[in-house]
């Protein structure tokens, strides 16, 4: 299956399919991009029901003002021999709310599974809220799984390093946010789409209250 990118902009919400099945030997690579001015619930259920199958689910979000966004992933490995990787990075500013619920289920007898999940969040304002809830349900024993979730602020040392090179504080913060989101954009295979999205994301960051 191809590398699918779903972009949610104000007035143009291209939502990903709520439920996808991935069969023997197939791979799914999906990226979700949520730009400021959007409030949405985004459920993503993937049933990995074949072996030698791989799933990559990536996403980035930028929320500002009173945006309210939830991403709810539900990856179910039902047979042996597949992998899934999830990476969701995002930045909440203004009075926005973001939540991430990420479930990985590995059925009994679904052995030799690798399933990884990462959700990293940065709060740019004291009034923004982020909830992150990873959930692993593992009923098999020969599997490799991990999840990691962080909520933090922009790194002060990084900011000072840039400012000491003459980069003004606001510009340093913009670069930091770009840097933070870059691993998600790096997962988009189509080079020209990746470049145009990087530009759009950068423009949106510049409009946000950093």
């Amino acid at each position, binding site marked *: 299956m191809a590398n699918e990118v779903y972009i949610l902009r104000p007035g143009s919400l291209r939502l990903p399919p709520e439920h996808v099945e991935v069969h023997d030997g197939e791979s799914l690579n999906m990226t979700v991009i949520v730009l400021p001015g959007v409030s949405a619930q985004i459920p993503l259920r993937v049933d990995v029901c074949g072996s030698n199958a791989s799933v990559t689910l990536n996403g980035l979000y930028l929320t500002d003002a009173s945006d309210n966004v939830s991403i709810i992933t539900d990856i179910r490995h039902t047979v042996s021999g597949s992998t899934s990787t999830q990476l969701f990075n995002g930045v909440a500013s203004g009075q926005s709310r973001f939540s991430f619920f990420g479930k990985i289920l590995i059925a009994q007898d679904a052995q030799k599974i690798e399933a990884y999940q990462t959700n990293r969040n940065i709060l740019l304002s004291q009034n923004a809220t982020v909830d992150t809830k990873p959930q692993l349900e593992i009923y098999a024993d020969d599997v490799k799984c991990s999840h990691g979730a962080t909520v933090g602020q922009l790194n*002060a040392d*990084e900011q000072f390093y840039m400012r*000491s090179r*003459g980069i003004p504080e606001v510009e340093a913060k913009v*670069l930091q946010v770009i*840097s933070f989101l870059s691993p998600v954009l790096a997962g988009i295979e189509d080079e020209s789409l990746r470049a145009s999205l990087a530009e759009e994301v950068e423009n949106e960051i510049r409009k946000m209250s950093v």
Partner: protein
Amino acid sequence: MANDILLEIKDLHAGIGEKEILKGVNLTIRKGEIHAVMGPNGAGKSTLSAVLTGKPMYEVTSGSITFMGKDLLSMSPEERSWAGIFMSFQYPVEIPGVTITNFMKTAINAKREALGLEPMKAGDFLKLLKEKMAFVKMRPEFAKREVNVGFSGGEKKRNEIFQMAMLEPKFSILDETDSGLDVDALKIVADGVNALHTEETSAIIITHYQKLLEYVVPDVVHVLKAGRIVTTGGRELVDAIEKNGFDQFQ
């Protein structure tokens, strides 16, 4: 003579929070001079470089720093950079997702904007970048690498000297630049520092060890202990410290 003074620190008291670390530092640096500040751990060396560059969290409680006739302490870190101050960091920071090219372009054009100049033309910038990379013997492919990500200790320090060459500072602070470097990397760094040094520019080398001072010869050497400069002399002080350590100075 007064016109020759680039930087003047007077009775500087500074620290973090309630803790006073610098307890009355006086230091005058003239154009063209290289100074070394040596001292044991905990003497206040890092605090001195932090205060010179305006690192947040550090508080100056009294005293003054004048740079080219201006009150340095009232300036933000970026304003200090635009005025010609540069620090080579002891621990250069990794910035994933930001290439060296993009980082330097942003830095140089921010300075030009602050000085009321147009952004540099892309072609001119790339020419400058290539020239300065060659100058510090950095391989051209580093231009596309993310800032300091996956760099060895030597590569990180070389990248600091490369940035120094790009920004052409009037006053450079080399903060423990020699720590963690092998002799080859140390020589490249020292060659860079020496080649960038002119009669109009000055540098301060802040260090625990004498290693770098074998290659970059200081005009003036200060010993910093417990937040004060306890001795000032010439090159011979470096040898005295190497022989008998810091205990001989009170």
